[in-house]
């Protein structure tokens, strides 16, 4: 069937609420408004205000309440409008959700799912455009998911709800309108492995979430130049699928990591380090990185675009890595 990323996500929420009476959606404007990004549009009318629960603008309060509800036996899906606002709830995410199982010596699981948008590309300025999922991926105890495809948008939520531990799902804001074919019987997918989106022999382009479309475009352009790029979609930023990453690099001997976060202290820094630590002798070129410019994301369209990993920059980085063959 023809669908969009937004509709796939909505179908996943509807399905979860129908499957399990403990599941409910809670967040800012998820109810009467239909969700800031219209993901939950119509669900309020369908399921009512108990299961599609509007909250005040109060991130620490409702994220913490989600943790408490999870401890109390519910299966909350908490929506935070954007990753920027999640900073107001970082205490609850980092000091409670991520730590309670360990601090309690294994007694208290936190089966919480938090969804939020991330990323730039819509001229929203610095306070609505950052990609901070790499920060959260720093935290042991959390699972970090970045659905980039319709299948993952449809399928990751249910698996996340089945996980006894807290799961954060980052939905890139530019993906919601992506349309395509999704199998009628599409359902839950695994949330522990990376996926090869385009097999190739000459270089591994490693990415996730919102930059996957640009990386696939770049791979198509490279193919026209005779460079056969493999595109690896990480899907899960924590715990990382080392086997898939190192397996791809062992095959292609070159890697460029594409990450919309800033280079310094980013998830791409972690990937680069892991590849260097574990696959140094497989490499024919230094690990390349295409990240966002180290500026708060500007509003002006040309400046914003210049700050982001574009197809041109990805192609250039791949050419450079391949050219390093000498």
């Amino acid at each position: 069937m023809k669908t969009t990323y937004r509709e796939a996500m909505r179908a996943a929420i509807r399905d979860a609420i129908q499957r399990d009476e403990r599941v409910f959606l809670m967040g800012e404007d998820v109810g009467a408004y239909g969700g800031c990004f219209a993901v939950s549009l119509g669900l309020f009318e369908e399921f009512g205000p108990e299961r599609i629960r509007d909250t005040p603008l109060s991130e620490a309060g409702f994220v913490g309440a989600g943790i408490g509800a999870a401890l109390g036996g519910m299966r909350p899906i908490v929506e935070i409008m954007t990753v920027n606002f999640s900073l107001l709830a970082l205490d609850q995410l980092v000091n409670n959700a991520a730590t309670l199982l360990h601090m309690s010596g294994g007694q208290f699981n936190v089966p919480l799912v938090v969804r939020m948008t991330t990323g730039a590309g819509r001229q929203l300025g610095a306070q609505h455009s950052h990609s901070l999922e790499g920060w959260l991926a720093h935290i042991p105890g959390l699972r970090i998911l970045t659905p980039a495809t319709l299948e993952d948008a449809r399928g990751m939520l249910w698996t996340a709800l089945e996980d006894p531990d807290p799961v954060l799902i980052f939905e890139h804001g530019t993906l919601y309108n992506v349309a395509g074919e999704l199998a009628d019987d599409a359902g839950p997918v695994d949330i522990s492995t990376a996926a090869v989106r385009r097999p190739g022999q000459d270089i591994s382009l490693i990415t996730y979430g919102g930059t996957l479309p640009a990386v696939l475009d770049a791979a198509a352009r490279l193919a026209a130049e005779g460079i056969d790029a493999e595109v690896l979609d990480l899907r899960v930023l924590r715990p990382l699928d080392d086997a898939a990453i190192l397996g791809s690099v062992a095959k292609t001997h070159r890697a460029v990591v594409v990450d919309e976060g800033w280079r310094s202290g980013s998830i791409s820094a972690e990937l680069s380090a892991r590849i260097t630590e574990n696959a140094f002798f497989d490499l024919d070129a230094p690990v390349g990185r295409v990240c966002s410019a180290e500026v708060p994301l500007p509003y002006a369209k040309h400046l914003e675009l210049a700050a982001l990993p574009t197809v041109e920059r990805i192609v250039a980085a791949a050419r450079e890595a391949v050219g390093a063959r000498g």
Partner: protein
Amino acid sequence: MGKADSDHARHLLHQMLRVRRLEEQCVELYSAAKIRGFLHVYIGEEAVAAGVMSTLAPDDAVVATYREHGHALLRGVPAGAILAEMYGHVEGCCRGRGGSMHLFDAGTRFFGGNAIVAGGLPLAVGLALADKMSGRSRVTVCFFGEGAVAEGAFHESLNLAALWQLPVLFCCENNLYAMGTALARSESQTDIALKAAGYEIASWSADGMDVLAVEEAARRAVDAVRAGGGPHFLELRTYRFRAHSMFDPERYRDKKEVSRWMERDPIDTLRKALETAGKLSEKDWKSIQREVEDEVKAAVEFAEAGTPEPLEDLTRFVYSERSPE
């Protein structure tokens, strides 16, 4: 005072003394370097935990702060498991991963042990939300200090609890100092019950040095919450006799103030009242003391005899051992 009442008062006296002696023991063990980390004792505030806990049912939930040994003990966590936790032993209530500030116990629905000021309030709101959505008549009680009322999480939690009419009892242990910051130096409005009332929450204050007053106020509140009356708020006016933690040189308050409050020691006060009323003989008191001494001694032996978790288990309990299919 009838027989039932005096038996109950003696029980509360016993409960307060259990907390007092356990913590005096903790201080000794800390000084002897047997236990480490931060240690915040509750000495002087025992009437609050004893009075509130006595009103709860076994399936109610309790959320507490980093000054929570007394709450854990009176909620039913064995003294040995509490002390073993401070020793960092696997026999501790959190297998040595939590320590003094992070006591947890699933069996008694004791949800911490939260060392972030006001960090437990949203959790309590969520536990109450789960009960309400599931149609259960359980109560969640959340303890926190008056320092927490300056945090955003306090205001967000009270607002949510009132907005959604959740079955939660907020218990503010107002001991007048947030570490070394006196209430009047940190709050524009120092009447905390009034602040809570601003959220349309039924709230009142009680003398936190009088266990019977605390219990009466708590029982009224817990009954109202359980009956569907929405969130309630208690400000319990109390005082800690000791420093904030073992590292606190206590330069922010004078000794006279401390000794004035110590004259209102909740244990001495109740003991004297019972003696005056002829409801507590010297023999009764001795027997309570002996029972508490025995319990604490056994707890120390239990903790001493404990074992460290094997190092290969270091990374256990970061993620659950059961993963989704």
